[in-house]
């Protein structure tokens, strides 16, 4: 009852405006390779990575598309592997994405949501971390 009351007050108070995590500042909990991630899920190792973890993921670009008016980068999951990593990019990343093409290597940071046939990440940004940092 108390939770419901608090919830109502939050709603009526207009506090629904809280923002998502600032991905630019967020520190990733894991640094992974796209092929490694996919190979774990293909082996049905579902506990390899928990949903909602912030992850920096590196891989080869398979495709860049704007299906559903969302800028999306797909990373290859490995040779002869149709499963891939789907990264739904933040809207402020459009300019940076223009510098990349399929087959380029890219490092992205995003929130892991889970695995269907592919690994799914939301709120993705191009990672600014320097290699070998």
């Amino acid at each position, binding site marked *: *009852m108390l*939770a*419901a*009351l608090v*919830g*109502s007050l*939050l*709603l009526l108070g207009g*506090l*629904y*405006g*809280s*923002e*998502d995590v600032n991905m630019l500042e967020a520190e990733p909990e894991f640094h992974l390779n796209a092929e490694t991630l996919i190979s774990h899920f293909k082996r049905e190792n579902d506990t390899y990575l928990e*949903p*909602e973890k912030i992850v920096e993921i590196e891989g080869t670009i398979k495709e860049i*598309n704007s*299906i*559903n008016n*969302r800028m*999306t980068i797909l990373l290859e999951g490995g040779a002869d592997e*149709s499963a891939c990593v*789907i990264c*739904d990019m933040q809207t402020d990343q459009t300019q940076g994405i223009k510098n990349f093409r399929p087959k380029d290597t890219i490092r992205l940071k995003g929130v892991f*949501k*889970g695995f*269907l*046939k*592919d690994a*799914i990440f*939301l709120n993705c940004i191009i990672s600014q971390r320097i290699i070998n940092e």
Partner: protein
Amino acid sequence: MSKVIPLFFLLIFYGQPPTEERIIARQGRVAFFSYTSVENIKAENNQVLSIIDLSTHDIAVSMLMNAFIFEKALMREHFNESYIESDIYPKATFEGKILDFDPSAEGEQTRMVKGTFSMHGTSKELEIKAKIENIQGTYVVSGTFEAYVKDYSIKIPPLLAGNIAKTISVDFRFEYQPYES
């Protein structure tokens, strides 16, 4: 529910027939809308998986419930933690058949899709009207249906009942490509 999940995975991962008879949408879109006098809530999921078997007309859909994007972060929190409980029920699935579907017909056809929609640990038989476009072998399936919150064991605190509609409008659109195994 217990029968639906194994059937779904059989179709998705181990299913016959050969891959050339199946088509896949990896970035399908499902959006829902809740309209009330207090508040309008809308959310969309753009990474919905769907596979159609063109020989049997079977269709399977799977989506991650925590991958819905809301306008406001607190709406997403309430949806995942209080209503859908996405940590306990991470996926929603639909498994069914497109009735009277002719995959060889070019252009647009409107067909009923009949099957079982499972969400939040509850399964419900649905019949949904869908528009199917076939443009030179590229299929797009889209439509709208109404979902009743009470059908899926979603508990809404009485004090918040006015904020969430009893009937949720759901839009979907899937653009399919040939299936790569």
